């Protein structure tokens, strides 16, 4: 039975409540900090141990030793974290995919801007006027101008899509750099946390660690989850083990970086730098970027993927250019003195390339030098007003053409890719993005319900700790008076 045991116990109590007040203050000041998890003081009554003497001592003499602060915990739900991170990679994927498709839609827009359909309409009008005056050079000139318009729109679309692709490759490179930075930082944090964490064996491995470092690490993992689908598991020593689609990215203080390579055919390959293996992803913004850059649609070969990405839309325009050249270069025959021959006038060329694309299609030299090339000339005799072949060229606009699998007229083809392909894809992605966003927000709310600071709660706690502090101070005063009675007023008889 110790004289000053009570005072010691009271001192511990004061200390514990002061710590608790500090923590409450910390919570309140950090109410708006991003990623901050509310902290609580974990206290337990001090245990009496009888191991030091030979006999089991009387509990009564050693009881009442006060409160012991075990540590400061954070209140966090690992399950909610996992669910949120899964949803975050969905959001990352659809956000990126929607933003890129939106860019593509803006470039190829026919609805609000003057695109391919408008220039085709002008070409048709010009041909129609020529058919009524099929010997007039003035009208032939107008046809040439209109044809140049169509070519220019095609060339323009092609180059703008390629610019988008280049930008996306740049963005992807930046993103991968950021992923690598995050991985390195998480590894560093793992090391730092490991140094400071100790486990509470009584409380089932609740780690009392450097809470701020743990918060920072969790924030980084949240950020990482947007890029790829990850799985997180806790190691015994307090560090985390993060896997990207099954492959270890960070484990304790070691990490594996990602690399990106741009291939000669303008596809990209994203791989693990140390093993050279291609990274496979299920979701996240990296997958969206790669899919959009490499996506060729159903006819993918090599590094291309089956998503309908930028390459797919470039190919769609290429098919249009192919058919435009194919049809119009086989409609107006070269005439000689004996009538129409078997050769046709070449109106469009691919500029010396083997395969015609939307990027290289151009007006042929013969037509460029002489706008009247398209007119039915019959140079030896007098001019012929025969407009049969111009009308035949006009009828091409009603002809069902096979665009490598899609059978439609020229204008129907533009409708098709604009609404069925682009329009549908954009509206689908937007719908999925909205859904993923709202689920993610809901999960954030749930997470906050567990981990975020509620000011009212902290205020109530503060009152509680303050009152407790006052009460213990009173106890200390009482103990002081007792001792005072004992020391100063016991055994003073006859003085």
């Amino acid at each position, binding site marked *: 039975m110790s004289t000053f045991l009570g005072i010691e116990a009271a001192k511990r109590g004061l200390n514990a409540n002061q710590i608790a007040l500090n923590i409450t203050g910390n919570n309140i000041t950090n109410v*708006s900090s991003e990623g901050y998890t509310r902290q609580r003081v974990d206290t337990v009554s001090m245990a009496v141990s009888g191991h030091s003497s030979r006999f089991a001592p009387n509990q009564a003499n050693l009881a009442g030793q006060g409160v012991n602060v075990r540590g400061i915990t954070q209140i966090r739900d690992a399950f909610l974290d996992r669910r949120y991170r899964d949803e975050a990679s969905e959001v990352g994927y659809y956000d990126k995919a929607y933003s890129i498709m939106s860019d593509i839609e803006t470039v190829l827009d026919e609805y609000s801007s003057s695109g391919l359909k408008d220039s085709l309409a002008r070409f048709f009008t010009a041909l129609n006027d020529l058919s009524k005056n099929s010997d007039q050079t003035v009208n032939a000139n107008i046809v040439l101008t209109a044809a140049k318009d169509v070519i220019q729109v095609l060339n323009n679309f092609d180059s703008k899509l390629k610019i988008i692709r280049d930008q996306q490759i740049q963005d992807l490179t930046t993103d991968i750099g950021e992923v690598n930075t995050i991985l390195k930082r998480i590894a560093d944090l793992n090391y730092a946390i490991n140094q400071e964490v100790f486990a509470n064996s009584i409380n089932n491995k609740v780690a009392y660690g450097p809470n701020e470092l743990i918060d920072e690490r969790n924030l980084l993992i949240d950020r990482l989850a947007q890029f790829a689908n990850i799985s997180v598991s806790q190691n015994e020593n307090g560090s985390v083990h993060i896997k990207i689609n099954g492959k270890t990215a960070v484990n304790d203080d070691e990490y594996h970086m990602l690399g990106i390579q741009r291939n000669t055919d303008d596809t990209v390959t994203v791989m693990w730098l140390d093993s050279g293996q291609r990274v496979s992803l299920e979701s996240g913004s990296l997958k969206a970027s790669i899919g959009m850059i490499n996506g060729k649609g159903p006819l993918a070969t090599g590094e291309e993927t089956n998503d309908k990405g930028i390459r797919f839309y470039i190919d769609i325009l290429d098919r249009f250019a192919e058919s435009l050249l194919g049809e119009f270069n086989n409609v107006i025959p070269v005439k000689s003195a004996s009538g129409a021959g078997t050769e046709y006038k070449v109106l469009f060329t691919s500029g010396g390339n083997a395969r015609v694309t939307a990027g290289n299609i151009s007006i042929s030299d013969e037509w460029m030098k002489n706008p009247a090339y398209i007119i039915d000339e019959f140079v030896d005799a007098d001019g012929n*007003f025969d407009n*049969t072949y111009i009308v035949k060229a006009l009828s091409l606009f*009603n002809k069902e053409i096979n665009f490598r699998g899609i059978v439609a007229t020229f204008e129907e083809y533009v409708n098709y890719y*604009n609404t069925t392909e682009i329009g549908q894809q954009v509206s689908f992605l937007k719908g999925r993005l909205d859904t993923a966003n709202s689920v993610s927000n809901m999960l954030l*709310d749930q997470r906050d319900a567990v981990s975020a600071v509620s000011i009212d709660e902290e205020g109530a706690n503060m009152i509680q700790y303050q009152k407790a502090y006052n009460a213990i101070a009173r106890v200390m005063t009482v103990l002081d008076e007792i001792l005072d009675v004992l020391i100063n007023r016991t055994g003073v008889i006859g003085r």
Partner: protein
Amino acid sequence: MRITHSSMMRSYISNLRSSISNLAKSNEKLSSMRKYSRASENTSEASRAYVIREQLYKNELYLKNIEDSISDLSAAETSLLTINDLIKTVQERSLRGETGTIDEIDRDVIAKEIQNIREQILQSINIKFGTRYLFGSSNNIEAPFSIGTDGKLVYNGTKVADIFRDPVTGKLMSPNPNYDPSDPDSTEYLEVPKNKDIYVDIGLGIVVNDDRIDPKTALKISSSGIDAIGYGEDNLFDLLTKIENSFRNNDMSNIDDYLDKLSRHKDNIMLHVTDIGSRVSYMEKSKERIENEIYNLKVKQADIEAIDLEYETINNKSYEMAWMINLQLGSQILPASIFDFLR
């Protein structure tokens, strides 16, 4: 469930964002008067809108084609009527010259008149409207009819007197100037040059078979002078020359025969006038049909693409109000906490 400061802020901000985004979209609709700015906003309506736009511009083209043709044909009709009147004049003169007792000077006068009228008929048949020779068929470089060195009529370089209709093919043929009997490829007779029909598209779905336009699928805008003037020995021009010579030489032996043929020419011309007339009336009907079509398409287009002004204005006002309320609530959302009440 614990409601925390951060979750309240988050939900307030996201509601604010969606409220201002609705308002902005509504403003854009009102200022552009269009329901959608992107095909992705409603793909099925966008698809229909494209089809309607295409039909609209094509129909407007066809309408223009028809209007141009109507004016061409009207001019051709006037020309033919003029020729008809001229023929009537010749008939009157000839009758007087034939029956009455007139002397040589009068006969000379009549011959001169006929010569004059013949020149006028030539001018009428060579009429140029805009950039086209109306009766030149597919010839547009020079006037289709001219006088040859022997005073006979020439059409596109061939003597009209030599033109005949092939009984087998029904086509008009003339002798081949480059005929070489020893050359097996050379034919004795060729089709009359530059006498093809010209067609324009009026939306009936033009079909081209073997480099020939199917006449049922397009509108013919050309007229052949040969049909009007006639071909062979008794074409109008040469006939008038013969009548003139009769008077000049005072040889009345064949004048009855000539006058007979002349009246048949008159009938032929009236036949052509009727033909042109019926073509014009067909075009007028097509024009009406197309104008109706354009009107209907425009109504449909407005239905699909344009906003309903009253509905959108009401929406706009309600979005604006929602926005205002959101802002006002903001000051109360950041709630009073317990600290306002502690001493």
